[in-house]
């Protein structure tokens, strides 16, 4: 077992084993993370809320139960961070928006309930693009999160808080949500693992909706096994979510231990490589393909011709659903309430307007306007209706591709982490960062991102995306687990790409954050 003086650098599986073996307690483990958060979060801004008291209470409870000989779930006592999009009873939940500043949910999201039932201390809530709209976490109302690899760069988005926390060892595990890549793309640009289960694989109940037909909750971790451990905790049917799948969780943990790729058919999606992909991203992808081939996988090229319309369809369906989902933030029952200036005794409608104007950021307003327009009578068929047809065609492309391959692969994101501020003025450039991840959301299939190295040109991490057919989540874990082992063997050390990340603690003490980036 690779060791590190700091408990925070263990994998979640190692932490679980150490707790079970009595090598350390959950209180010690949780406190170690809280200390690291206290030291580094002021710089990273990965957490919006830290629940020191609650996390330690859970940890102490788990320790007591373990001491009493109780048979505990595998991850009991292993701390976790939760994206601020999931409701946590008693802990403020903002979805990165000013409109929900200080709002304390009276209930837990199902995913949070499952974490609590499994005994995972919740360290706090992680930063995100407002209502998960963005690919950089710059659209958070509470300031951007910084990438531990380079504090002037974005940690991906919308779940940049979760990815940065996991990459910087502030938490071994985190909950993310993925509507168009918000788990996978942050994973890729921070050198961590992020998995989006099959649509309906994890309950959405209590997770603030962005686009209901696309949103999916999933694990963020540093290894495939850790992701699978968390996936098994949060997955499974929930009667509170009508769209949740009423079937057992796929055997992802068992699959993560797979090392045999003989005869596995791996499809390279032609439309998701080549032009538009950074040289180093493409190079690391090609190397992974070669590793898979050498390990006995059968590499095939597949074509998904309708993927060229995916971005257009996505940016009609998402804003349409979001415009409706976000209508509830009207200042009538909760959230920011602002009276319009210069209006005496304003009407409810005027208060709604002023509050929404003050409470929502530009990207949110942009998408609400777009969605409202796309759903308008006379435009519905041309926009929302056509987009749904494209969605069907994309699902058919995947079906055809999975006839030829057991899993499909592509680079997760076309580039490494860009600099904070680089794409804020160009929404289209920002949107294109999700070009490889969006098709899976439109089709409802599972996908994960695994670190596949760092580029030569900027030394930043890149990710490889592995996609599987709906409900066959175990396949991406099986290929991911095997490839992760092959890469680790090549890299040496702990086998983690994070070995090559700069020491963020040194960076902080050296004052490495540029004044401009601040």
């Amino acid at each position, binding site marked *: 077992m690779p060791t590190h003086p700091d408990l925070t650098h263990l994998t979640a599986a190692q932490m679980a084993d150490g707790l079970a073996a009595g090598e350390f307690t959950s209180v010690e483990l949780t406190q170690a993370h809280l200390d690291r958060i206290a030291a580094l979060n002021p710089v990273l801004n990965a957490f919006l809320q830290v629940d020191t008291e609650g996390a330690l209470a859970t940890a102490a409870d788990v320790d007591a139960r373990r001491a009493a000989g109780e048979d505990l779930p595998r991850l009991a006592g292993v701390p976790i961070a939760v994206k601020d999009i999931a409701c946590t009873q008693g802990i403020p939940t903002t979805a990165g928006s000013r409109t929900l500043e200080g709002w304390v949910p009276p209930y837990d999201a199902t995913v949070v309930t499952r974490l609590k039932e499994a005994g995972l201390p919740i360290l706090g809530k992680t930063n995100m693009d407002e209502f998960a709209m963005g690919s950089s976490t710059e659209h958070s109302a509470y300031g951007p999160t910084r990438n531990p690899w380079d504090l002037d760069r974005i940690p991906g988005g919308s779940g940049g808080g979760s990815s940065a926390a996991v990459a910087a060892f502030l938490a071994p595990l985190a909950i993310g949500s993925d509507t168009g890549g918000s788990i996978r793309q942050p994973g890729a640009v921070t050198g961590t693992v992020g998995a989006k289960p099959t649509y309906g694989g994890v309950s959405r109940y209590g997770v603030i909706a962005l686009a209901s037909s696309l949103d999916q909750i999933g694990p963020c971790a540093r290894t495939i096994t850790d992701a699978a451990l968390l996936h098994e905790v949060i997955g499974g049917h929930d009667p509170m979510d009508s*769209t949740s799948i009423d079937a057992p969780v796929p055997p992802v943990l068992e699959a993560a231990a797979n090392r045999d790729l003989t005869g596995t058919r791996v499809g390279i999606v032609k439309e998701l490589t080549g032009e538009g992909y950074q040289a180093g991203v493409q190079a690391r992808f090609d190397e992974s393909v070669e590793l898979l081939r050498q390990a006995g996988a059968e590499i095939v090229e597949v074509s998904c011709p309708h993927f060229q319309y995916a971005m257009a369809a996505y940016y009609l369906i998402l804003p349409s*659903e979001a415009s409706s989902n976000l209508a509830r933030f009207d200042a009538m*029952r909760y959230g920011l309430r602002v009276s319009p200036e210069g209006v005496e*005794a304003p*009407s409810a409608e005027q208060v*709604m307007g002023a509050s929404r104007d003050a409470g929502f950021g530009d990207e949110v307003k942009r998408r609400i306007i777009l969605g409202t327009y796309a759903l308008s*009578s006379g435009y519905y068929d041309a926009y929302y209706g056509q987009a749904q047809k494209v969605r069907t065609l994309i699902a058919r492309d995947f079906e055809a591709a999975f006839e030829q391959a057991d899993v499909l692969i592509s680079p997760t994101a076309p580039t490494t982490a860009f600099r904070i501020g680089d794409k804020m003025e160009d929404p289209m450039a920002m949107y294109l960062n999700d070009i490889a991840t969006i098709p899976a959301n439109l089709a409802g299939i599972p996908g994960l991102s695994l670190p596949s190295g760092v580029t030569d040109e900027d030394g930043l991490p890149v990710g490889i995306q592995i996609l599987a057919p709906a409900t066959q989540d175990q396949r991406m874990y099986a290929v991911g687990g095997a490839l992760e082992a092959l890469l680790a063997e090549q890299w040496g050390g702990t086998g983690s790409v994070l070995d090559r990340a700069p020491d963020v603690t040194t960076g902080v003490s050296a004052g490495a954050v540029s004044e401009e980036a601040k």
Partner: protein
Amino acid sequence: MSTHTESMEVEDVVAYDEALTRFDPVLGLEVHVELNTATKMFCGCATGFGADPNTQVCPVCLGLPGALPVVNATAVESAIRIGLALNCQIADWCRFARKNYFYPDMPKNFQTSQYDEPIAFEGYLDVDLDDGTVFRVEIERAHMEEDTGKSTHIGGSTGRIHGAEFSLVDFNRAGIPLIEIVTKPITGAGERAPEVARAYVSALRDLLKALDVSDVKMEQGNVRCDANVSLRARVGDDPSAEEQLAVPLGTRTETKNVNSLRSVERAVRYEICRHAAVLDSGSSILQETRHWHEDTGVTTSGRPKSDADDYRYFPEPDLVPVAPTRERVEELRATLPEPPAERRKRLQSDWGYSDLEMRDVLNAGAIEVIEETVAAGATPAAARKWWMGDLARRANDAGTAVTELGVTPAHIAELDGLVRAGRLNDSMARQVMEGVLAGEGGPTQVVDARGLELVQDDGALEAAVDKVIAANPDVADKIRDGKVQAAGALIGQVMKEMRGQADAAKARELILGKLT
């Protein structure tokens, strides 16, 4: 705060009969029915009426961030049963849709409803009119949706949001399952349009009650009617003639939330008169919603409503489609009660009531209690006589329902049994009823306690007859001369002699036997 002041001035109207000489009214009725399910449409909250404000709420029906709906299966079954009872087709597959608009009492700022895929469509309801004729109302659709919260506007004069100082919202009602039943344009009713409107809502209410899917209390808002009215030029005498039906429809107004049968009739009638005045003046009808004022009997302008109102409907992505199997639909069809109209016909025939008698029974709402009384053993005639006669008068005087008097169908059947067995005559039966009403027990107990048995001893009766004949020789002579009807005077005296406890028929028999 008010952005516009509502005009409360009285508008011109044309006399109803006159309006009908020139115009043909067309109706469209939208009825919202609150189902009587134990829980709400999309969450597990209770639905009881009259609870303290905002005590029957949860994250789902409050529209809290992250909450998701789950369809109430019982509500779907109720919707299907309503559809079947309205002779509708039931969708193989249909979805919910979001109707997007902002309003403070709508928690999500969209209503989860159904749009172009209703659960039930293309049906009809046959409606009995007062003169016994049947009018068929075509049903366009019946769809499922959720109710909104209830706003109470404080301050201001109109009780509406405009002009109010502040508003209170009770979300207990938010998410209560509703079925909205929409008719096709109701044409051909002519001058009977207001009556058809009332009779339709009445028939629908009876049907829903028989289905036991709603409490159907209009005063509690369980059944709410929006009445659309438009006028078009009248051509010829027959409102259902081809050339009349070919005239294009006029602009309609929608009078919202008309909440009693009588109001439905009055509101439709008022709008016909008002439309006629507007059209007569050369103006055109503004397409708008109207508010009905029960006290003054008029409608006032609400908000403009155009066909371009844009609710940005789209399929509800948080719910899966509703796809009832044909087997399940047929199982539900088997649970349908006998249609109220057919039941009435059957009971009238079984009971041998005249049309007039049956209508009185229906109007009195006594059909169930009579049915129970007959089932308990009374003759239909006796059941009607008691419930529609003495007891109805007493209930009326006491301002209570006839079933609240403390008399049960079993009491009536028992009393009727005593009369038919010859143990009581009519006046004694009334005395027994007095005792029952006074809480002295059941009829037999009262008979025993009050000693009200008919005298069965022929000797005593014969003695009384002889005594009365002897005392009235001139009357006796008339009878001997063949004026049999004069016997009545003697019977009355015999009854008096017997202190009422004699069988009048037997007395008559004895008198006539002795004198003819």
